[in-house]
């Protein structure tokens, strides 16, 4: 389904949401390839939402921050909503001290809350296997 042609960062599709995550080493080349792959997938899959999990990122420097801000803007131009989820607390502290607020980037505490914000709700019944149930809000 997903062919990670870009820097080995897989992009999965759940309904009309693309789910992806950054690994703990994002170099410039990977970031550029990831940006191209993700915008292509938004277009080809008709995605309305994009979840970017960054819980594995040990640092976010100004380069990674810029990448996230640009991705968010590009996705919005294509009609998709990006939520960046799972930032580690030390990363949040460091970003603020760096002077970076990720202006315009929507965030969530974790991937589950990000998916809920995009219309996915976890089934309350354990027999549901804990998998998300898609209930479009509109």
């Amino acid at each position, binding site marked *: 389904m997903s062919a990670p042609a870009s820097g080995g960062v897989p992009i999965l599709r759940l309904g009309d949401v693309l789910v992806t995550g950054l690994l703990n080493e994002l170099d410039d080349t990977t970031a550029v390839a990831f940006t191209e792959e993700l915008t292509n997938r938004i277009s080809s899959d008709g995605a309305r939402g994009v979840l970017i999990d960054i819980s594995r990122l*040990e640092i976010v420097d100004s*380069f990674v*921050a*810029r990448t996230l801000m640009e991705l968010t803007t590009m996705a919005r131009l294509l009609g998709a909503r990006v939520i960046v989820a799972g930032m580690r607390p*030390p990363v949040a*502290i*460091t970003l603020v001290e*760096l*002077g970076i607020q990720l202006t315009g980037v929507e965030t969530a505490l974790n991937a589950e809350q990000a998916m809920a914000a995009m219309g996915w709700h976890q089934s309350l019944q354990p027999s549901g296997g804990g998998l998300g149930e898609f209930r479009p809000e509109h």
Partner: protein
Amino acid sequence: MSSARNTDHTVALSPTASDAANRAAHTERTVHHVRIEEDLLTVRHAVRAATLRAGFSIVDQTRVVTAASELARNAYIHGGGGTVTIDQLTLRGNAGLRLTVKDDGPGIADTDAALADGFTTGAGLGHGLGGARRLMNDFELHTVPGQGTTVIATRWAGR
């Protein structure tokens, strides 16, 4: 933009920083070259390992590795490459880490502007130099137009 002046534009944010660092005992020094982009990863790994050896908290680890990433990227992009020297220090039982990031690039004509947030001539957000300064306890910027830039930045555990 360039001036004929050949003065050493030095910004020492903490006048005692060098003195304190000089009195501190060196326990280990490693030097890393920044020539290609992959070297930025190597520097981050080396700095991370040094913060672990120094017993830094997870927040301090993140601060120092992030600052190193910004400074090494500056040397790579603006300075055409350079070196990152990591010194592990001990001062009165307190562990510290000093980063010396040196390049032989064009230097910085206006250090005040370069340290201000939002100033960028490259691919970042313009927070690199000023941001790195805020993430470290001591920060010195030495630059001579035409002769390169050296940043010396130190962070002490639990400060």
